[in-house]
């Protein structure tokens, strides 16, 4: 049976990540770094990935990781979403790591790279657009791939070519930063050209890439849950304190109902995100279905929560100095990331036999 609760270990992990984000996750500093084109905080990443071992949660101990599962990685992503943290966790520690885990891990090149990622010493990203859905078309060949998330700081690019999946050192590729809607998740165009280390043949490579994208889509739901939670909590706090017409604005029924509605959506999103994380962790045959349900639902909830957050903050919500904009930009970009809600519903239509006309 699907376990939709949080274990004690997961609660402890959450507390640790939350306190790290609270200590280092200054959103004003983040906005300033993001505008300068480099939103990451290397010290936060070092603490999270290496010291806390979060980068290696999906990797078995014998391959140098923590031997935990998608359930724990999902909790990390909830907290990174809550703090709208800029870090290559989703791209490197989840998507690229999962893709590598789907390959033959007895291969030295795969095992070495996995160990490096698990220790947080290096990062890797799939050279596919952030918008790529688990069951959608994949770039193939040596051309320029646009919209690759976190490529600008990645050490290694995993490139799918006609004859297989390659690990290409970033220094050997051309990486051109783009201007992203979501300032906290940088995008780049990547031209990997030739060369690199061949990790798998074309069929195994494509399967691995899809496996990485599926895990990424499933756990992205937890990031979206974290975004929605922060937006709701902050809106409740603000409207409880802000006075207009000689009353806290949060006492007006029209506003209360909108926040109560959002709470309902957050409660539901948590169940959906937990179901997806648990299905991925247990290798359930329903993983694809659970991921599609979670993505179709949680994407919309995060965007709705962020939009309400801006609206119910009034004028301050439209400013650069208030962090609401960072959440709105992340939520809207996450809606497109790893497949739009519509794309996931199409996948679902086939999975549950509700065919189109």
């Amino acid at each position, binding site marked *: 049976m699907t376990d939709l609760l949080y274990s004690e270990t997961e609660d402890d992990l959450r507390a640790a990540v939350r306190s790290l984000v609270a200590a280092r996750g200054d959103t004003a500093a983040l906005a300033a770094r993001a505008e300068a084109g480099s939103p990451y905080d290397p010290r936060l990443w070092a603490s999270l990935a290496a010291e806390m071992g979060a980068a290696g949660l999906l990797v078995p101990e014998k391959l140098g990781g923590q031997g935990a599962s998608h359930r724990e990685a999902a909790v990390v992503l909830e907290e990174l979403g809550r703090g709208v943290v800029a870090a290559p966790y989703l791209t490197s520690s989840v998507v690229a790591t999962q893709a590598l885990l789907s390959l033959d891990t007895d291969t030295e090149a795969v095992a070495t790279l996995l160990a490096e990622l698990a220790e947080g010493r290096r990062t890797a990203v799939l050279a596919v657009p952030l918008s790529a859905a688990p069951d959608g078309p994949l770039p193939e060949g040596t051309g320029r791939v646009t919209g690759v998330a976190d490529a600008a700081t990645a050490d290694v690019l995993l490139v799918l070519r006609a004859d297989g999946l390659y690990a290409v050192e970033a220094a050997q590729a051309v990486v051109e930063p783009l201007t992203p809607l979501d300032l906290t998740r940088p995008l780049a165009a990547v031209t990997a050209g030739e060369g690199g280390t061949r990790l798998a043949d074309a069929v195994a490579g494509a399967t691995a890439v899809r496996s990485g994208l599926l895990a990424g889509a499933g756990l992205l739901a937890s990031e979206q849950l974290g975004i929605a939670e922060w937006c709701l909590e902050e809106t409740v706090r603000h409207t*409880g304190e802000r006075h207009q017409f000689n009353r806290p604005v949060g006492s007006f029924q029209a506003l209360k*109902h909108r926040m109560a509605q959002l709470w309902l959506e957050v409660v539901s*999103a948590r169940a959906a995100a937990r179901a997806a994380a648990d299905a991925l962790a247990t290798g359930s045959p329903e993983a694809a279905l659970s991921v599609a349900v979670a993505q179709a639902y949680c994407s919309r909830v995060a965007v709705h929560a962020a939009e309400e957050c801006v609206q119910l903050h009034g004028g301050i919500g439209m400013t650069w100095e208030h962090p609401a904009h960072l959440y709105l930009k992340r939520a809207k970009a996450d809606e497109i990331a790893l497949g739009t809600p519509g794309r996931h519903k199409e996948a679902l239509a086939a999975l549950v*036999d509700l065919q189109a006309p």
Partner: protein
Amino acid sequence: MTDAAELLGLTRKLLAAYPPATTDRADFLKARFDAGLAWVHFPEGLGGLGAPRSLQAVVDAELAAAGAPDNDPRRIGIGLGMAAPTILKYGSQEVKERFLRPLWTGEEVWCQLFSEPGAGSDLAALGTRAVRDEATGDWVVDGQKVWTSSAHVARWAILIARTDPDLPKHRGITYFVCDMTDPGVEVRPLRQITGEAEFNEVFLTGVRIPDAHRLGEVGEGWKVAQTTLNNERVAIGGMRLPREGGMIGPIARTWRERPELRTHDLHQRLLTLWVEAEVSRLAGERLRQQLVVGQPGPEGSAMKLAFARLNQEISGLEVELRGEEGLLYDDWTMRRPELVDFTGRDAGYRYLRSKGNSIEGGTTEVLLNIVAERVLGLPAEPRNDKDVAWKDLAR
């Protein structure tokens, strides 16, 4: 007595002494109650063993596997879900012993005399009067209740009535158990939007209630009613459904079986609702898992809200999907069903009946206020009825 193995042993002993295949249904249920296996978390002698609530599942699974009869919870829902926990908390020992056993076995059906024509969502505004007869100590009740499910089959009712109109509305209410067969209780069917009369109006004229049937102190009825209402929400939220187990099931089947009805617009809307129904099911399952490990969350009220909206949207889409057939209705005869049967009727019935889901058991508007204030901690709306005597309120 808190051990799963011991409970399993007792359950097997019961099955051996009263083999379900050869035992009368009522006899089996009485024996199960007397063995303390009805609701294991209730005290000994009252159908329970003082065990943790979560261990009930052990007993239920063993009995289900043995094909034992169960106490049809749909028919006796108000008694089990609302009257029983209130009686357990506020009833005297005599009251508990008198009422809990036939309530649990289903021999006696209960209804709830709370809502009134002038007091629905503003329940504490109720005007039904209960006046003490100083000679006998009895209470004499006069007034009118409404939206009373099962009143036409109920043997007993939980009732709230005003005992002091000079106090502010929440403070002058008292809680009683009312005998539905008493002279002065008149039940009239209230025909609904669906054509049937599942609800009733109940007229109370000089109904005499012995003081022994009062639950809680005089004037403390609002506090007692909170126990009833909180349990109502838990009962609504804790249901367990398989995938496509709710209203999404019939429309999904129709979609699969009738390709000629499909359009692209309907497909998009169906998929959206399918996702929402599945997420709502998962949220309900998460709530159930929290209850099992003793971490009940406030999600129960969320489930009721989600379920009300989804039922309405799904059934509305289903009528539209059926096109020309959607113009027809199965049966307008005024029937008086003992329980609501959503899936045994056509889409049109589901569409009309589901309109009540956002009204019954607390309107969506009132529940959203409760979520906003009690869960999110938002400030209450200013109110002007708290310190005014009930008799001076505008009506």
